[in-house]
């Protein structure tokens, strides 16, 4: 499952990774990907998140 977030500047994936690995959704995490040009942060997870989990992810992504 991939979640997309708009990020017009390159995000700090190291920080985001630490945050997600320390969150309640750490087990779902695979990796992040960001590309200049499409300005989308792609969050690759091993499953779809439920609504509460999605809120957690949104909060984490907002940090970077």
């Amino acid at each position, binding site marked *: 499952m991939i979640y997309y977030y708009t990020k017009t500047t390159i995000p700090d994936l190291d920080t985001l990774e630490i945050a997600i690995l320390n969150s309640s959704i750490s087990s779902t995490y695979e990796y992040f*990907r960001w590309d200049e040009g499409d300005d989308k942060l792609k969050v690759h997870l091993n499953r779809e998140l439920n609504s509460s989990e999605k809120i957690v992810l949104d909060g984490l992504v907002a940090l970077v």
Partner: protein
Amino acid sequence: MHLIGGAGSGFSGYSGVSGYSGYSGLSGYSGTSGLSGYSGYSGYSGLSGASGSIGTSGYSGYSGIGTSGYSGTSGFSGQEGSSGYSGTSGVSGYSGESGYSGFSGYSGESGSSGYSGQSGVSGYSGVSGESGWSGESGESGTSGHSGYSGESGTSGYSGESGYSGASGESGYSGASGGSGYSGASGVSGYSGTSGYSGAIANYYYAEDLGESNTTSSYATYVNKLTYTFTPTAGTYILEWNFVAVHSSAGGDVWVRVSNGTDVYSEARINCVNSYTNVGWVARTGFIRLTLAAVSNSFYIDFCRHSSGTAYIKSSKILLRRVA
């Protein structure tokens, strides 16, 4: 006939059979006048012979064989000046009744003349005798050899004629005219920019200069650049290049170049300096490939080794057909 003209030069020309080459008298070289000669009154060769130069030149020569004679006062071989090229004149110089040689034979302005050329059968002087001819008009003026006026044939009485005009324009013996500068035929040869020789120079490329990063760990590559095309079957050189860096000094980035099946390059690149410290590392490579005329895809993929973030940018793939 091509000659390079030139003022003050050359051979004034052979006026061909034309008649008179001008006033022998003062003219230049009367030259060997061939059959000409008889000018009606005969005998008197006119002033010819007394040739010499009006100008600086002149060899008068003799005015023909035998009976030629009176050239009258003809024979002016023209003034000096710069003659032109008489070229091959036609049948110039009909003198009509008189011995007037008309313009035929004219050697042009002998002066710094050019080539008089062959004047053909010019010079019929009409009634009069067989004279006419002035022979080789010689080098009047400063010119070169005025040339031989040819055989005057039956031209006759030169009578008063002979005046070949006060040179200058005179003596134009037919179409000869100015020889002009035949010379250089222009800039031949250069065939322009030949440039590439067709399909051999074909090339194809894709690039993504933008920056990408990932936390995907080896060996889960993520794609950075894909190039897909259907080539003309042949031999190609596949080239690639990119720069990569890791978020941490000492971190490792993996980059792989492949066609999805065959891996042309795969490397773990240790980055001494971090992304923050602009530690980009450049890599390039190439390989020769024989491609069929089917769809082919080439990829540059990357990932980190196990931790941190891997960055890549300025990724390019180039295919050049070489055979």
